[in-house]
Every structure is written in C-alpha cells, then in structure tokens.
C-alpha cells in the first residue's frame, strides 16, 4: 500500500477584493484618517470590513495524493488551479483548512523566475538553483547535466539578456528539471518553448513519474495531461468538480468545454466582422452532432467593411488529443480574390473519418501577406461525432473505450493469413438515407 504524499483537508483561500482596492490608495488613507478623526476612522474601518467583497478562490478542497501518483489538474482560467498550487508551494497561506506534505517538494510555477538578465548562463544556473532550494554542492554536481539538457554550451558565459527566448526557456527548465524532489508541483510552464523542447520536458517529467515520484501537473494541454498522468482532477469554481482516471476527467472536461457560446469576432483595423460560424450536415441543416463518415460543412459568415484582398483562411478539426485534419489555403492556395461586403465562405469536409468523440473547429484568417493576422487561430465551433460503431461493422472488445482511441480512421483492409480480407471504413454499411443523399448538392445552393 503506497503512502500518502499529499493530504489536503478542507482547504480554502479567500481574497478580499475591497481590501485590495484600499491598498491602491496607499498609506494616505490609513494615516490621514487615523490622525484627523481616530473615532471615525475606527468606525469606518469596521464598516468597510462589512462592505468588502469576499472572493473564495478555493473552498473545501479535500484531496489525497499517494506517493508515486501523477495527477493532472485541469480547469478553466480562474477556476482555482493556480491558487491550489500556490498554497501547496507555500507561497501564500490558506484561509481555512490544512494540508500535509510528506517529502521534499519542489514547485515550478513559472519558468525562469529568479533569472537575472545581466548575469551569464553559468551564473544564473547557480542562482536559480539556489532559489529553487538546491545547495551549492548539488548544483555543482548536476551542472554538466543541466548544461547538456539545455543545449546552450556555447553561450554559457553570455548574459542571458542576449539569449533568444527559446534558449532562455530551455535553460530555465533545465535547472528546474534537475531539482531532485520527491514531490514535483508544476504549473503551466510548457506553454512556452518550441514543440521539440516541450517534448523533451514532458519526457523528463515522464522519467520523473516513472521513478516513483509524485507529480502534480497543471496544464491546458489535455494531450500532455493524458500522456503524463494516471489521475485527473477537475477544479471548477474553486472546488474539486471531478476526480478520477485521467481519461474520464479529461473527456468530461473536453465535452463540457465544447458546449459553450457562439463565436463571433471583430477586427476593426481590417474592417472585418465574423458574424458566425455554422456547422451543417450533408443535407445543409445546421447540426452539432454528426455520424462517423458523414459530411461536415463549416460555414463562415462575414461582413467586410473594407476590401480585403486575397485572404488566407485555415480551418482545423481538433480532437481531445490534438489536431485531426485541416483545410489550409496557405497550403492549397485556393484563396478568394477579395472579401467585400457581406458573404460566406464554406468548406465541405467529405465523409469525416472520425470516431465518436468530441471535437472543436479552429479557424484563422490572415491577410494577403501571411504576416497580417486578421483573426488569430482559435476555437470557433464544437461538434460531437456519435453513433454506434456496430453499424459500421466494428465488433472489438474495446468498443466501449472508443472515446479514448486515436480519433481519425482512414479506410483500411486487414489481410489475414487465411486469405480473408476485412475492410474497415467509417462508412455506414446500411444507410439508405445516406445513399439517397448522394448527388444532392450539400451546400443547398
């Protein structure tokens, strides 16, 4: 039986919003009021205490983490994830409740805190190491490893202010990665850095987890969480909303995030307004739910007050584990000559080869020059693929775990030793409606 590494009981953190406003006024209020009319000052203090708005960033959080467990914490911005990590890292103190931690803890809430721009890479390794709690002997012992991991050998004696942001992040993560704690607390630190380095960092954290150490990991990258963690905790409105296996929790989180409001966007500089983005099925009807193998139409309605010549539109279909497929004018080159006035751009994705899961549609619009970002890449719509895969000839034991499989399935044939050929495709085997639909212009034009 593994021992508890972190035991949290009824933890809560309250911020008083009124109080912070008073702080802005500085000492003047405190002093002036007290000197002019001590009585009134005391009274007003008591009153203002009542007027202050309390905000519980975290409340009634109870959570046990065993040694060797790797826990991913997810939730929207402002849900209280970072507050929880700040409390566990002892940066701030709880308002109520308590927690117990067994083992040497290191927390990494931001990459490169404590780096000094004027100092060289070498000097910063020592400084940052000491700030993160390493002794000089430990740093010296790990120095070569850190340098190797960060890949900055040649710039070791250059002030870090001359580093590229990538080098800076690499060095900072390298120092932190070589802390040797029993419990590691990591906030969204991988949002920076290129993808190769992110992989390296995740790999390092994976090694960490495999060596039986405890990791608490906050990220918006659900894929990273799923790769790294066994257990997921979803924090919502300052409380533990769901706690379970990482597949369950990230799945539920992704689905709930999908049910949100309609997209619209305005870029005043280019005079372009995206009024809405609709998803339609093969019959041209607006839909949120699609069958595997059905057609999907993404329809973008815009209003261009100024003429926008040769814009580049890119669409991406994104599943829980990342991008599935895209349609990108920057790649295929089919750009409209111009956008002027109100109009629509649609894209028909034929027979989407997607398993029953939740997906989002992301969109980006650039100007004639790809450097002009008119609408940055972002989520514009959500849809679910649902259906019984038995209808498609699927019959494996893991059918009920289909939500956790790789979502894109291109048609394939198994050729078995006995000569049988088994064709698999996300195309309904019996589907008269679909057959009847063939030939109908799906745009409904």
């Amino acid at each position, binding site marked *: 039986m593994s021992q508890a590494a972190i035991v949290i009981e009824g933890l809560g953190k309250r911020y008083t919003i009124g109080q912070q406003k008073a702080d802005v006024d500085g000492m003047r209020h405190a002093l002036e009021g007290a000197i002019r009319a001590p009585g009134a000052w005391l009274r007003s203090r008591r009153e203002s205490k009542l007027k202050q708005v309390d905000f519980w960033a975290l409340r009634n959080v109870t959570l046990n983490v065993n040694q060797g467990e790797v826990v991913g914490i997810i939730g929207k911005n402002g849900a209280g994830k970072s507050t929880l990590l700040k409390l566990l*890292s002892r*940066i701030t*103190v709880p308002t109520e409740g308590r927690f117990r931690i067994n083992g040497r803890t290191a927390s990494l809430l931001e990459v490169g805190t404590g780096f000094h721009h*004027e100092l060289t890479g070498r000097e910063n390794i020592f*400084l940052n190491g000491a700030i993160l709690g390493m*002794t000089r002997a430990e740093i010296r012992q790990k120095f070569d490893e850190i340098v190797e991991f960060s890949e900055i050998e040649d710039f070791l004696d250059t002030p870090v202010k001359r580093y590229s942001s990538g080098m800076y992040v690499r060095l900072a993560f390298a120092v932190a990665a070589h802390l040797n704690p029993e419990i590691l607390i990591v906030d969204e630190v991988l949002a920076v850095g290129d993808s190769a380095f992110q992989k390296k960092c995740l790999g390092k954290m994976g090694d960490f987890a495999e060596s039986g150490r405890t990791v608490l990991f906050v990220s918006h990258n659900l894929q990273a969480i799923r790769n790294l963690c066994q257990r997921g905790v979803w924090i919502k409105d300052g409380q533990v909303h769901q706690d379970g296996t990482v597949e369950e929790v990230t799945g539920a989180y992704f689905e709930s995030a999908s049910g949100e409001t309609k997209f619209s966007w305005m870029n005043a500089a280019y005079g372009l307004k995206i009024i809405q983005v609709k998803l339609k099925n093969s019959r041209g009807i607006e839909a949120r739910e699609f069958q595997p193998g059905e057609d999907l139409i993404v329809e973008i309605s815009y209003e261009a007050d100024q003429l926008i010549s040769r814009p580049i539109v890119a669409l991406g279909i994104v599943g829980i584990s990342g991008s599935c497929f895209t349609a990108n004018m920057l790649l295929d080159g089919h750009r409209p000559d111009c956008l002027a006035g109100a109009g629509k751009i649609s894209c028909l994705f034929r027979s989407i080869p997607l398993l029953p899961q939740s997906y989002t549609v992301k969109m980006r619009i650039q100007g004639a020059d790809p450097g002009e970002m008119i609408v940055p890449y972002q989520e514009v719509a959500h849809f679910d693929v649902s259906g019984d895969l038995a209808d498609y000839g699927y019959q494996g034991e893991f059918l009920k775990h289909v939500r956790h499989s790789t979502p894109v399935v291109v048609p394939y044939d198994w050729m078995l030793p006995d000569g049988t050929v088994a064709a698999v495709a996300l195309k309904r085997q019996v589907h008269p409606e679909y057959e009847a639909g063939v030939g109908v212009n799906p745009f409904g034009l």
Partner: protein
Amino acid sequence: MTELLVEAGRTEGQYWKDIWRYRELFFFLGWRDLLVRYKQTVVGVSWSLLRPLLTVLILTLVFGKLGKMPSGGLPYPLLVLCGMLPWQFFSTAISDSGNSLVSNSSLIAKIYFPRLILAASSIITSFVDFLISSAFLVALMVWYRLIPPVEAVFLPFFVLLAFCASLGVGFWIAALMVRYRDFRIIVPFVVQFGLYLSPVGYQSSVVPVRFRLLYSLNPMVGIIDGFRWSLLGAQNKMYLPALTLSILEVAAILVSGVLYFRKTELTFADVI
C-alpha cells in the same frame, strides 16, 4: 522523510529551520547583487571608492572649511570618514533592504523561501562597500601617520551595532513597502535628513548640552560616536547616555522588525 503541515491561522514552527536550510541562498542573493551592481558601468568597482572619497571631500569642505567646525586637533577628512563609514553603510543598507521585496516581487509571487533572507541578503552589498571604504580609512590613517588607540578593540562591537540597526530598520521598511509604496519616497528623504541629523560631517560634541539627550534619540548618534571613539581615541569622549540609548533602540527595532516582518510575510504574495 521531511513532513510539512500547513494549517490556516497557524504559523509554522518550521520557519527558523527553513532559514537554516536556505542559508546558502542568503549568500547567493548577495553575490547576485554584487555581480549585477556595476555591470555596464564604465568605472566599475571604482565607484565603491569614488563615492566615499567625493562625499568626504564635500563634507570636509562644507563643515570643516566653510563651517569652521572644531576638529579637536584631528585632520578633518579623517573625522568625516570615521562618521561616514557607519552612516553610509546604514543608509544604503536600509534603502536596498527596503526595496528588496518589491524589486523581487516576481520571486515572491512564484517561489517559496523565507522572505527574511531576501531582506537580509540585500545588506551584503552595502557591507562590501563598507569594507572597501574601510580600506580607504586605513590608507588615510597611514597618510596622516595616526595609530589607532587601544579602544579600537571595541570597533567590531560598533560594526555589529550598525549591522543590527540596518537589519532592523531594513526589515521594517521592506515589510511596510510591500503594502505602502509611499516608503519608496520616504526613505530617500529620511536618508537625506539623517545625514545632517547624525554627526557625520561634524562631531556630536558641537551639539549644545541641553539638546544632547534629545539629539541622541537618533540611534545612529551612539554608533557614529562609537566609531570615532574607537578609531581616533580619547579626544572624542563617549557620551554614555547616547550609547545606551542606541543599544536599547537598536535591540527594540531589530526584535520588532523581525516580528512585524514575520506577521506580514504570510500575505506578501497576495499584496505585492
């Protein structure tokens, strides 16, 4: 295995153990401040010598030549330097220490370590400057062929007193600055006034006797007098009430400074 229990409304008993655990950080932060201090300056470390040199020159000119203050038969520059050593140490230490938390706010918001270390380590730079200026003093004494009296054995005590005074005031200002940025303006002001309210450019014996006790309420009076007495000898008699007051005040400031700092430290990350 280390176990840590954090409970709402209870201060940890681990605090002093943590300070010990992070003791190396104290030197690392001081080392950082020293390294960074004269980066991208033309004159570099020489500033540490130039500053006291120029100040001594000005003060000698103003108080010694123009003001014609008595020097008790001693070379005026030496008199000024003896007063300036502890004063400059104290004044730069409290400004640095006072600013230490606010200028390192990103550290405070993201990493745990005993914050007391941050405020204390910023005194290291001032202390190194103090040592450099001391070398200047030795050179000046050799130049005037003056041998320090036996009282010089008490010098370390006065250095310690100056150190404690700097720490105590530094803790207070650092903790107050987190909430009230007003101190950013107040401190340079106090330092400027303090130069004249402390016996730096003159000897405290020029203060009329009836004001002497009042004057000695400034804890730096006892410390600066002590420096002169131990370095330049008997001509500068110690005024004992000033020394006693100094010791008591410094002790009170240091203890209350640590307590206030500890009390407010818990919310630094929320307020800063």
